[in-house]
């Protein structure tokens, strides 16, 4: 049961990406994550936020604190109404990129997280959910 209300942040500019990193860091600290775990989730968030901005045409992220008795951490949901990902399998492969990226955004975020879900529909949008806990 979350102990603090979820927070939604817009991702429309590069400055927003910076804000997302700061807020994710703050939540991670609040959840009691150690330094390495904090760094992992903030880095994953940075990757996904950039994806949302660069490929999703902008969107938003919702931050929730997880505290369900024994598990404490953060959950992030990145959402955009962009073109969507036609081939998820391909997108999750290391090194695959449709832009100038290193192709590590999705697969990297997955590796850095305890939980990872991605849903995407072409022409509708994409939603990526990640979670990191102690």
């Amino acid at each position, binding site marked *: 049961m979350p102990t603090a209300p979820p927070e939604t942040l817009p991702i429309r500019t*590069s*400055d927003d*990406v*910076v804000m997302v*990193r700061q807020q994710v*860091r703050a939540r991670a600290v609040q959840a009691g994550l150690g*330094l*390495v775990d*904090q*760094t*992992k989730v*903030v*880095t994953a968030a*940075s*990757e996904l936020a*950039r994806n949302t901005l660069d490929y999703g045409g902008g969107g938003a992220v919702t931050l929730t604190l997880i505290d369900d008795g024994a598990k404490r951490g953060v959950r992030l949901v990145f959402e955009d109404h962009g073109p969507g990902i036609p081939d998820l399998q391909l997108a999750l492969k*290391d090194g695959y990129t449709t832009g*100038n*990226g*290193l192709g*590590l*955004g999705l*697969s*990297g975020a997955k*590796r*850095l997280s305890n939980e990872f879900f991605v849903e995407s529909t072409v022409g509708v949008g994409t939603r990526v959910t990640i979670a990191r806990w102690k």
Partner: protein
Amino acid sequence: MDRIPILKLGDALLVTIQVDMHDRLATALEDDLTNKIVKHGAHGVLIDISALEIVDSFIGRTLDNIAAVSRVLDAETVVVGMRPAVAITLVELGLSLAGVKTALNVERGMALIQRRHHILEHGADADSAS
């Protein structure tokens, strides 16, 4: 617009990245570095990332780019001061930074640059660096 300052340190150039970089800043940095390497005939570029709490693939790409361009201009790029938590995360993220040399701090990085330059100038046999 802010630009990241580049200092001359002996035969090398020193860049200290302290702020969250965005596209324009990164591009400006690459431009400035390229110009300065040529202008000063620099042997190397030291990028101090000790202030960075995270390094994502965007920054990784920027570092790769800088290293690649510098190499073409015959200068060695050394990234110094990576924090342990960042190193662990990078490895997990899968960012290899293969084209970039790393060192613990500016002093070590400088030694690396000088050693390489010394080898290039005088041949491998003459390498008696300590």
